[in-house]
């Protein structure tokens, strides 16, 4: 058997785990591993400018491909800088393995230089973590880490490795386990047959059904099954923020995103539904509004791979634990051979009602631009223009705030894994590094990072990483010179007292900033030049383009749930109109 040092084993095990790209940042405790990386070419390391970006980039890779993202950081500050990205991945169930260097074994607990208890600090935000105590354990531990991260409900796994365990002078036999079995970890692979039967009966008996699908359908690659089931039931489908793209955004049966900034028709249909089929969704507080008032007449069928998601905030009438693709397939199969049949006239009536709600739209189906307000650019129109120019087929990453909601509402995603955003944790600074991860994993694809002048400044240093590795992402900066979503809340709930949400004259010249990194900067100030400049942006295939787009500063995101104490159907539809 081949003898390798601990550092070499780390790199070899990553390769055997299928890692092509490793995002990271070197430092003392990780140097043996970095030296091993230098001496091979199977695993490409990408040097970011801040460890947070390494985790977001690996996250973007994972979201866009379904593969497990890989990160390498050093101990202490390297590890703590990675924490935000790990928490982001945890909240959205993204498969990721983070390898962190640690101080040598005999120094652990001594408050050594750059020591931090990484396993302890990361404990509440990982699916699992390991501290490797011996070089002979590295390969098996990394294999386990990848297995845990990518199976069941995915999530981040931390592997903390003390420096002396990776030392070059200590060589041990290398063996990567072919099969991994963990006696205490056996994710469910199949839904309960009896529950599936009950679900079929309930679905066929429904007069006002809604399918509410979430990120689990994207992560579980169950999009085609979702579409087939929705078609055969002729049921309206709403996607959560995390589920966008799982059901085609331009399809007639799609009634838009639901929740705090969901469409009028999606939220109203949910409220009046008699049966809700929740698939890979978790009844998040940004969806349900006040839980006591949530969908009063609905029977709830809930499919999820994670039993803890079921009946956590909203009690399920028919819980089904299992992988979304498998359970949906079983539903489809059994639907075909059921003796029951749908009340078609009730479904037709339901669609008539939904289409009526659709016509009373809470989001704008026509351009938002109003000539009477001058040549000002509405942020919604920027997203519409992005959709047109990219043919609706780009990977779109986003940061967090108004721009994120506009992108979710107006870019109609027709495929899963195209919409990449931090839904659960709401991490500003996610967009640009995530876009790098997407771009590297999908060379040649159009990758747009929709951001704002607030979020982009949280990881803007990564423009340098884009230069070094030639990652031609397109940055669509909706510049309203303020923290837009904060300001919106301050308008609505704090009598427009803009406490620390305005940048005044402190913003950089983003065009010059982009140029200083060797990129192209384009400033857009007038509505009539928007489409043309957007097209110019995407015609520059091999360049990073920073589109600094000055948008209407007063725009709010609507619809917006009335909170607190509102139900699903209680929404503001504009600054003055509410349901």
């Amino acid at each position, binding site marked *: 058997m081949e003898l390798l040092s601990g550092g070499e084993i780390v790199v070899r095990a990553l390769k055997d785990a299928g890692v092509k790209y490793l995002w990271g940042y070197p430092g003392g405790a990780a140097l043996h591993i970095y030296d091993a990386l230098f001496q091979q070419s199977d695993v490409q390391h990408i040097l970011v400018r801040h460890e947070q970006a390494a985790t977001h980039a690996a996250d973007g890779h994972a979201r866009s491909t379904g593969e497990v993202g890989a990160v390498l950081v050093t101990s202490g500050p390297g590890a703590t800088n990675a924490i935000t990205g790990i928490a982001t991945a945890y909240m959205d169930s993204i498969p990721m393995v983070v390898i962190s260097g640690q101080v040598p074994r005999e120094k652990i607990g001594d408050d050594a230089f750059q020591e931090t208890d990484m*396993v*302890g600090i990361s*404990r*509440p935000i990982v*699916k*699992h*973590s390991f*501290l490797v105590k011996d070089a002979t354990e590295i390969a098996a531990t990394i294999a386990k880490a990848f297995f*845990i991260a990518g199976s069941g409900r995915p999530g981040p796994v931390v592997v903390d490795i003390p420096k002396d365990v990776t030392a070059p002078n200590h060589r041990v036999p290398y063996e990567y386990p072919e099969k991994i079995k*963990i*006696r*205490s*970890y056996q994710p469910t692979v199949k839904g309960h047959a009896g529950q599936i039967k009950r679900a079929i009966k309930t679905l066929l008996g429904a007069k006002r059904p809604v399918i509410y699908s979430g990120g689990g359908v994207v992560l579980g690659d169950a999009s085609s099954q979702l579409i087939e089931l929705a078609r055969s039931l002729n049921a309206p489908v709403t996607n959560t923020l995390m589920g966008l793209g799982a059901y085609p955004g331009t399809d007639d049966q799609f009634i838009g995103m639901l929740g705090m900034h969901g469409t009028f028709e999606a939220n109203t249909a949910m409220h009046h539904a008699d049966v809700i089929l929740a698939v890979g969704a978790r009844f998040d507080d940004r969806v349900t509004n006040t839980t006591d008032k949530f969908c009063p007449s609905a029977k709830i069928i809930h499919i999820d791979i*994670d*039993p*803890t998601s079921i*009946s*956590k905030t909203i*009690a399920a009438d028919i819980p089904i634990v299992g992988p979304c693709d498998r359970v949906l397939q079983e539903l489809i199969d059994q639907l075909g051979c059921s003796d029951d049949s749908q009340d078609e006239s009730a479904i037709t009536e339901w669609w008539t009602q939904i289409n009526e709600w659709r016509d009373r739209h809470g989001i704008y189906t026509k351009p938002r631009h109003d000539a009477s307000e001058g040549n000002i650019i509405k942020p919604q129109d920027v997203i519409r223009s992005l959709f047109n120019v990219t043919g609706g087929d780009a990977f779109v990453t986003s940061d967090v705030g108004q721009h994120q909601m506009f992108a979710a509402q107006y870019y109609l995603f027709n495929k899963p894994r195209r919409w990449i955003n931090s839904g659960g944790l709401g991490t500003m600074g996610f967009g640009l590094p995530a876009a790098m991860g997407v771009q590297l994993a999908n060379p040649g694809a159009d990758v747009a990072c929709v951001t704002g002048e607030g979020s982009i400044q949280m990881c803007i240093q990564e423009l340098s990483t884009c230069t070094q590795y030639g990652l031609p992402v397109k940055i669509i900066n909706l510049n309203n010179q303020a923290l837009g979503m904060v300001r919106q809340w301050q308008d609505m709930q704090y009598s427009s007292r803009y406490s620390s949400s305005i940048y005044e004259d402190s913003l950089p010249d983003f065009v010059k900033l982009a140029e200083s990194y060797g990129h192209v900067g384009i400033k857009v100030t007038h509505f009539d030049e928007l489409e043309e400049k957007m097209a110019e942006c995407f015609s520059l295939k091999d360049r990073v383009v920073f589109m600094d787009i000055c948008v209407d500063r007063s725009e709010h995101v609507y619809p917006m749930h009335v909170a607190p104490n509102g139900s699903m159907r209680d929404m503001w539809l504009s600054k003055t109109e509410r349901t």
Partner: protein
Amino acid sequence: MRRILSVLLENEPGSLSRVVGLFSQRGYNIDTLTVAPTEDQTLSRLTLTTHGNDRVIEQITKNLNKLIDVVKVVDLTEGPHIERELMLLKVKANDLQRAEIKRCVDIFRGQIVDVNAHAYTVQIVGNSDKLDAFIQAIGDADILELVRTGVSGLARGEKSLRL
């Protein structure tokens, strides 16, 4: 409602902190907690008592099961079971009190496990109610210190929690 949960746990460094962390992270209560290795050295058995409504207990059980290091979880309070807790209690014992405390210990089938001129150390084993009752019963005595192990328990009959 009070529940006794029994957990088989991989005997790995950090596994206990994951269990304890879960409770603080999700705002669940731990009333007592006891843990030690089992006859199989790779496994620890942990018994904890908690309280909450059915929804909370269901979430606790599911979240415990979700931890990678947790092999099995059972709610002992769902069926007939035996529970025991051990208490050591040091109590001032002078003159007349000595006889009174001794009588009380006998009634509760406890033992005096250490004696000196001014104090007894008493050991009582039983379910938690019995231990509480003993503390009540010696109400007038001056308790110097008291330590309880927390609850351990097993299901009655042949039912057993094992791999």
